[in-house]
């Protein structure tokens, strides 16, 4: 059974190995599979300037293995849209605020893409943001994500026209956080209740980490 763990600077010490696996998988997915060569690193860990104390990770774990994850980052700090993709935003009006986060590095490992892992991670995403009082989350994604988000019940507004990034039409967009969206994506995920785990000290409950 997949559970989604919230990892912040407060509990990351207990998730060292989980985060290492997540960074390695990011390299597999974004560099090897999608071909974003700029992110390639000799140690095979895809880590950037936003993997700092301000980042929050939602990591999908199944049987102690990382099967997917995403990163949330405050938009009041320099973030990926403001630093790397301001040209994707119409008239340069970057959406930022205390209740706006940016989502980056979303993925589900290849062998779990046919199932409901995507929906579960998206449900955990809405659930986490609702609990934290977040109103909108911005992201730059390939255009093929739009209909998937729509189908998951997400209300998404475009922040600019699609623009080629690494030869793919990509878009900057803002996802509205809402109970309705959480309800809809939970239904798709086959979830009846919360799937988010917040552990102060995860060592005892995640054997893979303790081993």
């Amino acid at each position, binding site marked *: 059974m997949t559970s989604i763990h919230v990892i912040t600077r407060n509990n990351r010490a207990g998730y060292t190995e989980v985060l290492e696996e997540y960074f390695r998988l990011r390299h597999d997915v974004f560099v090897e599979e999608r071909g974003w060569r700029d992110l390639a690193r000799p140690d095979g860990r895809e880590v950037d300037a936003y993997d700092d104390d301000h980042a929050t990770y939602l990591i999908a774990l199944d049987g102690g293995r990382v099967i997917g994850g995403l990163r949330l980052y405050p938009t009041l700090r320099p973030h990926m849209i403001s630093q790397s993709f301001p040209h994707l935003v119409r008239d340069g009006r970057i959406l930022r605020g205390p209740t706006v986060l940016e989502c980056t590095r979303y993925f589900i490992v290849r062998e779990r893409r046919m199932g409901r892992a995507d929906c579960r991670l998206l449900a955990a995403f809405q659930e986490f943001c609702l609990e934290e009082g977040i109103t909108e989350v911005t992201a730059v994604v390939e*255009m093929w994500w739009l*209909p998937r988000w729509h*189908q998951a019940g997400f209300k998404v507004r*475009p922040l600019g*026209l*699609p623009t080629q990034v690494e030869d793919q039409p990509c878009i900057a967009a803002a996802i509205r956080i809402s109970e309705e969206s959480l309800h809809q994506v939970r239904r798709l995920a086959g979830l009846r209740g919360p799937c988010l785990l917040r552990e102060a000290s995860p060592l005892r409950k995640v054997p893979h980490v303790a081993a």
Partner: protein
Amino acid sequence: MSGRRLDHTAEAFAFIEELDRLASPQEIIDAMERSFARFGFENFIMTGLPHPDQRIESLVLLKKWPLGWYQRYTRSGYDRYDPVIRLCRQTVQPFEWSEARYDPEANPKAALVMHEAAEFGMRQGYCLPVHGLNGFEACLSMGGSSPDLTPRTKPALHLMAMYAFERARLILAPSPRPNPLTPREREALRWAALGKSAADTGEILGVTERTITAHIASACQKLSAANKTQAVAKALQHRLIEM
């Protein structure tokens, strides 16, 4: 940035805003007709992609196609040969119809479809595939005699198409159909999916093998399945049972 590019951006955003206010399929068709006409597209169709046992008519969400062409296309099952549909299944990226390659020698019917579409004024086109969650496949395909298809117009069309699709899907989405299977039928199929025979399942549930066989047969009938294997596959595919 040229003024023309700005116009496309404004056009796309105005269209998306307008969509939110539309409540009926006809209003969406009218809005698409107006907006896409500015890019030189006279015709469009928004449809799910049929499985081998489905007819495309049952999956069409919206259309503005010449009536004669639509009738010919659906009656003759042209979607089976249409190179645009074929490419649409293989890519998530938008493409021009001319990019949907086929070998006219090996595939004369594909050539026929494209040739006849041109006779109805649909000489060029742009197809925007939709690949959703759980294997959902659809597209918005638009055609015209000489549309304005350039690297400047395509991003606007792409965005407009995805939002038009979403609006149509929301308005037309049938309310979720109740599960046609009874709890006993679902249980029998779940055990079958785990590899249990009717006899095993009967033992587990404390009923006779014959009862289980009857449940399975009834499920097969409801799902139009030829046998237990197909019934399990269909039930899983349509999420009528969960593992």
